[in-house]
């Protein structure tokens, strides 16, 4: 579980030992989403305008969060709900635990929520003797496996059906078949009873509509509705960045989100929750609590380049197209959020000391920015964070080891003083005979060994300059 903040995320170390089953499972699932998304996008001639609108609205909202959050709070209170402000993950956990304690809650059912993954809520609940059960099928699976999610919208994307069946068999003392339909039926049977007996339902939220104080949940399995209607208490933990000004702007995001995430026009369920039930006769919980999670977001807002990460609507499209993510899987990113968006969010939430490798875990190929529904310039932010790591800025001291920084100084000198570069280019071919086999160099010493361990290098052959001089004289 992601209950303790990682003190260091070793992306490279993890990447050396990626279990072979992960890339193949991830690629199988993500290519389905990529295909679905492309088909839905092709149907909408106004797609690019929608992306621009989505980007503009998100940018406007995060720059005016104080106004919209105040409006949101008023709306929720007017509807009879409670709003709690949580500056840190720890405070968010304490707020939820206190609500549970006041209401003598023994069992909690949860719908899928990245915010509760971010704060490691399950672990805190268990610590307080409260049973917390994930009811989204993917989350249920990773809860059985005892891990965090490896994808924003498909938490168990790294597992194949055979592995899931084995998890079920082992944890539930049954003989589970490797059949998705049957596995879902088994989970549903177990979860149904829990829904009816839980004292509290915990959810996240995809959006918060400021003008009416409405929590919006975009889901596919129906468990979200059960979590938010059956128990007497509903607690939603949502990042402060999830607010949208009004219903008109919400429609833009509802068009963008499902198409970008799963390639659906609309998800199966779109729920709008404005406060608790109004009377005894109505369905729905007696109390509604919204925990607004900051956890570093206000700090991120101070950085005009980095803050665009807060435009994110958590669709996962960036991960689905990311060739790095598809070859390492989500655990390589060492935190609650993975893929390109994780590579720019984790270093800003956890700090570049702990997550300094993540901004480098990209080839800057730009595929992510091409599909992002709210046009987050992910490569630009990766570069921005690399500068924070390498040189330091007003937000953080440099965190790259001294030898790497010294190498950069020497490289800069060699490339800026052109006679040094040209001398080097003339000398390099001298090493060719030592390492050449069949026209390629292999087994080169460090640091080039890190190239040749994967594929050979062409021989050094700087001959153009001499050729040019000879033909022009």
């Amino acid at each position, binding site marked *: 579980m992601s209950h303790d903040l990682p003190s260091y995320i070793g992306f490279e170390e993890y990447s050396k030992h*990626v279990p072979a089953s992960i890339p193949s499972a991830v690629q199988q699932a993500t290519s389905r989403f990529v295909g679905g998304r492309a088909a839905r996008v092709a149907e909408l001639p106004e797609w690019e305008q929608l992306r621009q609108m989505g980007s503009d609205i998100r940018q406007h909202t995060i720059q005016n969060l104080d106004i919209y959050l105040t409006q949101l709070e008023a709306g929720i209170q007017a509807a009879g709900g409670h709003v709690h402000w949580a500056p840190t993950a720890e405070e968010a956990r304490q707020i939820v635990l206190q609500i549970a304690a006041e209401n003598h809650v023994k069992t909690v059912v949860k719908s899928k929520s990245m915010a509760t993954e971010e704060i490691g809520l399950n672990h805190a609940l268990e610590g307080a003797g409260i049973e917390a059960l994930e009811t989204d099928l993917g989350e249920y699976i990773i809860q059985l496996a005892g891990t965090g999610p490896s994808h924003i919208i498909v938490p168990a994307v790294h597992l194949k059906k055979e592995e899931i069946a084995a998890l079920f068999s082992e944890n539930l003392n049954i003989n589970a078949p490797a059949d998705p339909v049957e596995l879902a039926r088994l989970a549903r049977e177990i979860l149904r009873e829990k829904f009816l007996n839980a004292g509290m339902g915990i959810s996240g939220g995809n959006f918060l509509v400021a003008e009416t104080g409405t929590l919006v949940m975009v889901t596919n399995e129906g468990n979200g509705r059960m979590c938010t209607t059956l128990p007497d208490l509903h607690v939603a933990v949502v990042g402060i960045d999830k607010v949208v000004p009004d219903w008109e702007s919400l429609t833009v995001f509802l068009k963008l989100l499902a198409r970008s995430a799963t390639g659906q026009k609309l998800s199966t369920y779109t729920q709008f929750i404005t406060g608790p039930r109004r009377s005894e006769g109505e369905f729905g919980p007696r109390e509604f609590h919204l925990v607004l999670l900051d956890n570093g977001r206000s700090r991120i807002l101070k950085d005009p380049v980095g803050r665009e990460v807060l435009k994110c609507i958590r669709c996962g499209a960036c991960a689905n197209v990311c060739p790095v993510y598809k070859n390492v899987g989500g655990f390589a990113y060492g935190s609650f959020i993975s893929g390109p968006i994780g590579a720019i969010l984790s270093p800003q939430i956890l700090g570049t000391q702990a997550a300094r490798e993540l901004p*480098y875990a990209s080839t800057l190929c730009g595929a992510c920015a091409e599909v992002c529904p709210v046009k987050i310039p992910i490569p630009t932010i990766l570069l921005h964070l690399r500068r924070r790591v390498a040189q330091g800025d007003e937000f953080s001291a440099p965190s790259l080891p001294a030898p790497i920084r010294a190498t*950069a*100084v020497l*490289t800069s000198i060699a*490339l*800026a003083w052109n006679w040094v570069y040209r001398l080097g280019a003339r000398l390099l071919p001298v090493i060719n005979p030592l390492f050449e086999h069949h026209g390629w160099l292999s087994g080169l010493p460090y640091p080039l060994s890190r190239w040749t361990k*994967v594929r050979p290098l062409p021989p050094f052959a*700087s001959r153009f300059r001499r050729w040019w001089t000879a033909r022009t004289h």
Partner: protein
Amino acid sequence: VSKAQLFITCLGDQFCTSTLQNMTHLLEALGVELSFPSEQTCCGQPLFNNGFEDKTRPVALNFLRAFSSSDAPIIGPSGSCVSMVKHHYPSLFKTGTSEYELAVDIASRTFEFTEFLVHQLKVTDVGAVYPHKVTYHASCHYLREMGLKTEAKALLAAVKGLEFISSSEEETCCGFGGAFAVTFPEVSRSMMENKVKNIVSSGADTVVTCEPGCLMNVAGGLHKAGSSIRAMHIIDILASREDSV
């Protein structure tokens, strides 16, 4: 007669002599009078992309000075290096300074080779003959930063005898990524092997790209896989004539 300055790039300089010679011949055959500023080294992208913006500045200044003695366009055989000059150089200097003005001026007249052919010279047929099955790797910065989606294919379509075969995941990164390849060699390997697999299963005997970096990676990967598929820079295809194939 139009003029242009050759920007050979550091990878081109070290590893692609014949490609640079072919670039020279092709441009001269199209009536372009070339010059070669020999003080040029590297555009500085390896430093810039690793977060060392301050260490990039002196390298960029060397480049700017090398190319500022002529007002002729600057042409390079790499979308990535050209993009560095075109899109990132101006951001290195404070607006209003003479360095900034120079960077903006140089950026506005720096072109990638196929871009220069198709959009400046308005040429797609250079008289090339290459009777082979050819597939294509769309390099990331060439494709997404430079926005060059159709240019290479238009040039390939005009090559006599060339049969174009598309390969799956044509626009997926090959795993080079500059320093990425040596920072995360295992991830680079997986990405490169995936690219090689797609090239091999296309059935082509040649794979073409417009980027020396990808070329080194993919060619090395093909060699390691024991494949006889040739990896070529588009310039070398465009320089092929009847008697050379």
